[in-house]
């Protein structure tokens, strides 16, 4: 529960931060990729996941979003096991080809399960980037200004008859 709270808080903080939409979009994409790829396999670290992590550190994307999406997508990946297996077994030829490449083999692409996961991650990453870019723009142009101007949340707290809840909500949304 606390983890969920942290994730949600991190998500909102990213939206209201000064980061540009592209920074949040890139962070969402990289976090999604990291969530669907193993960082460490039985044979050692995955070169591909390590490279993505390095890119996330060097590129000026929103690091908080990277970690939020990494966690979220890791949770989602557990639910995607059967789909990943279907996708991976369907791409058997690619798994065989990956066995011939040292970096891809070490990244788990010769394993049909992890290959399926990576493919799902690659498909979801641009989608997550696009959605986050849009949500950021929409939140900032519409919702944030309205929230700040009308203090609707504070009003909601008053309606609830509890100033503490309102203050907590304001603190939560970093307003």
């Amino acid at each position, binding site marked *: 529960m606390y983890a969920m709270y942290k994730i949600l808080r991190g998500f909102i903080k990213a939206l209201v931060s000064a980061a540009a939409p592209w920074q949040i979009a890139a962070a969402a994409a990289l976090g999604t990729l990291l969530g669907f790829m193993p960082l460490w396999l039985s044979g050692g670290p995955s070169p591909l996941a390590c490279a993505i992590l390095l890119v996330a550190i*060097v590129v*000026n994307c929103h690091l908080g979003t990277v970690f939020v999406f990494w966690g979220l997508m890791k949770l989602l990946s557990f639910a995607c096991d059967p789909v990943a*297996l279907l996708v991976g077994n369907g791409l058997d030829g690619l*798994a065989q080809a990956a066995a011939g490449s040292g970096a891809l083999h070490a990244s788990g692409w*010769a*394993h049909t399960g*992890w290959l399926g996961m990576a493919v799902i991650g690659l498909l979801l990453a641009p989608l997550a980037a696009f959605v986050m870019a849009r949500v950021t723009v929409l939140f900032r142009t519409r919702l944030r200004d309205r929230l700040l101007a009308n203090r609707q949340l504070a009003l909601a707290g008053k309606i609830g008859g509890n100033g503490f809840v309102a203050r907590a909500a304001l603190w939560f949304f970093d307003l």
Partner: protein
Amino acid sequence: MTAPQSPATAPQPRTRLLRRAALWLLPLALLVLLALVPLVIEPWLSSKVRSAAGLAGLEIAPETQIAVSLFGGRITITKLDLREYVEGKPRSLMQADTAELDADVLACLGGDIVLDNVVLEGASGDFRRRGDGTIPLITPPPEERGGIDWSKLDWWEYARKAYEYHQNRDKDADATEAQPTSATPATPAKPPRQRPAHDWNGAHTYEPEPGPAGPAMRVLIRRLSASGRDIQLPDDTPFAVTSFTVKGLNLGWGRHEQGTDWGLDVQTQTRGAGTLNLGFGAGRAKVNALALPLQALAHPALAGETIARHGASGLADVVLDLRWAERLDGTVQAKITGLKLAPQAPSQQEAQVAQIVNRLDGKPLDWTMKLGGTPQDPQVTDNGLTALVKDSLGDAAKQAAIDEGGKLLNEQLRKNDKVQQLQKNEEVQKAQEKAKDLLKGWGK
């Protein structure tokens, strides 16, 4: 006059593509890591060397110093003492003053174990049988055997299979090299092996096919140089080594390095079997034993009673030279001098052979045996006995006969000389004349 721009409408500063902090933090982190290497990583690697020996059921003595230089790719071991524990007691198997291993770091990063240089100095070993008759390093200690009866293992069969595997691997490598580059379509590469993935139900994983073209791990020692003192062999025989030098080139297994040949040359001085030199390479093997006492071969630990009962003595220079590709071609040349036989409880035939041999009076015998067949199934194509009887043995017999005849002749000549000398003696001549005088007129 224009109103000042409100903060909301002020142009936003352009966001940088790269994180400025990362540009100095990452090199800084790298520098910290590099600084940590001699303090943390190298001691950790040293401990891994010790634990690797532990995994093999051995122990590196605490007084052994192991220094690992990660950037230099070098492991230096001083006062090496490799031990095994049998029934809870340590027993030293191998010692060396220094051992240096230079690794090819780039090749090792690719997952291979490639050592440019291995130097071992002042080495000695003790491979005497354990109390239960098993041999250290070959047979694991009793507590690690896992119910395998090592005494029943057919080592020859294992060696044969290993040879066949290497032959097939070499053929595959040659076939890969012989493939035309563009004129004709290349034969498809071997598909990777499929294995079930144990960490994921229903998934499977592909492992690269080991072979010359695959990325399977390779273990290679490019140059080996070792020298040392005594090596105690499993049994106490005259072949116990008192000093040795070993030179090796491109020793290993796994993928081939194109255009390289391998070789291993061993020179040993033994306690009671003279000098023994061994040379091996791709398709060749040579064993050279100089001044090998035949009594050494008759040691019960080597040949049981087979040779010992003939009571053979003498010195032999033996050269075993083998070369093979598909077929084996080899010779065993032996020059035996001072051969004497003293059989114990011999049969009539053995006694006759001993008599003939001993009459040769230790004259040199040249015996050449030819080997053929295949490396897996070597055969003696010419046992060389006919030539031995015709040439060396025949010559020796003739020489013995001539010597014997000469002796008899000399004896006779000596006797004749004595007669002549007697005849020349004045007293004898006078006596003869007196006798003639006495006999004068006798019979008239």
